[in-house]
């Protein structure tokens, strides 16, 4: 089990570095869409919630997992859609200008 944690830490650390590198130097115009877009990605918790909610037999874990599925789906769907709505406005305007 400890090896699992170490492997996880390796993945976590490397992914953090990738995150820092990818996101550095973003123009201020895109800060809000970036935040709501990355916010939608943090809804990845839905994967965990699906696994916890997956059991066919009702128990407390399944109930908690299902609540997690609902909240995470709001996060994912709301986040991606509102980001698209914002970026659409930027698009429209650039064409006009």
């Amino acid at each position: 089990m400890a090896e699992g944690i170490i492997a996880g830490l390796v993945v976590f650390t490397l992914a953090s570095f990738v995150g820092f590198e990818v996101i550095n130097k973003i123009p201020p115009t895109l800060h809000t869409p970036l935040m709501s877009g990355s916010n939608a990605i943090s809804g990845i918790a839905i994967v965990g919630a699906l696994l916890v909610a997956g059991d066919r037999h009702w128990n407390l874990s399944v109930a908690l997992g299902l609540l997690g599925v609902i909240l995470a789906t709001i996060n994912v769907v709301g986040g991606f859609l509102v980001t698209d709505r914002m970026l659409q406005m930027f698009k429209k305007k650039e064409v006009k200008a």
Partner: protein
Amino acid sequence: MSEFLPTGIQLSYLIASALFIIGLKQLGSPATARQGNVVGAIGMLIAIVATLLDRQVLNYEMIALGIAIGAGLGAVMAYRVAMTDMPQMVGLLNGFGGAASALVAVGEFWRVTSVMDVVPLSETITIVLSILIGGITLTGSLLAFAKLQELVPGAPITFPFQQPVNLAIVVTFLAGSGMLIANPHDLPVFLTLVVLSLILGFLFVLPIGGADTPVVISLLNSFSGLAASAAGFVLMNNMLIIAGALVGASGIILTELMCRAMNRTLANVLFSAFGSTQTATAGAVADSEDKTVRSIDSEQGAMMLGYARSVVVVPGYGMAVAQAQHAVRELTDQLERLGVEVKYAIHPVAGRMPGHMNVLLAEANVPYTQLYDMDDINPEFERTDVALVIGANDVVNPAARTNQSSPIYGMPILEVDRAQHTIVIKRGMNAGFSGVENELFYKNKTMMLFGSAKDAITQLVAAVKEL
């Protein structure tokens, strides 16, 4: 053949992770941002579909119902929300993400303790960590949402012995974690830890003032990612760990950018409510009494603007609150009709979240090419005839440059005082969020146009039309 499905799921996770990275990369450039968002969404779809194929997932009816409810609510929120309310929206979504991660940890704790007699140490530690981060993200975000929505006062809220109380809760949490590690089946201790992490999130945001919410929202965004990562450690799921780490990193970068734009450290933003600013405010108010303010009406203002060669508009949160961005756009259209060159100067912390002002002006169809960042516009003010400040205060306060004793000294500002003339639209002479008096208002070149941003701009538009 039995190995095929799990391998396929892991490969799908790998593809989804790659798509998230590509999506984030594309979100960083105006030309590809919208595509990047779509790429991220496709990654998410792949991750969800792959997970549904997992042998562990059997409860399809209920899950379909849950996803339908969540998707419906999310879509309604996304299409209904006003652009001024984006910070609240992101705050609330952060909270939901954090809550989902914490629920995963609680659910997993339940499952593990009911099927195993001996719970592995690593399992308990990751569950505690996940509940801590998820819980803080949930209540912290909900309180930030309530502050932004003005359900509770935006001012910093402090009470006696606040820091000792916080410390006591942290110590209790650590002690409780130790007890749970010793005996993972101790349900009361587990529930206490859940409640304590919720209280911590609440207390963490309580003393942070309304002006600092861009920083808090960025930080909570980072937390919601870390919460997902922590849940990934609980389930030993790389997909969660990677996506969470990416979001955690991006949130930290934006937090750092916001802090730099206010010339403050993160620690200062989080803890400054504890008794440093009040004294400085008192000193600044006293010496302002014998200064005079030049006030003008909208006709005079229209005259100055209409006959200028170049005008720089400096929008602040006051403009956003008054929903005056459309009126401002109309005003600048009228000015351009008269041959005036119009630019917008955007301070990095204008609005209530990073880049918020750009979104609001985009909504009002202000051309992208007219928006200028602080570093680009500051050298231009000397050649500008009129700087029009609408509902901004601290970000144009020259004291940040000149007065070493000012609390905002050193903060990068928009140097509107270098323009030939400055018109400030403001409701009254109140100090800004920082509580600091603004000497710009008393300068010879500065004219005050009192009124709510929307009324004042609407009158200016009418007056400019008659020129």
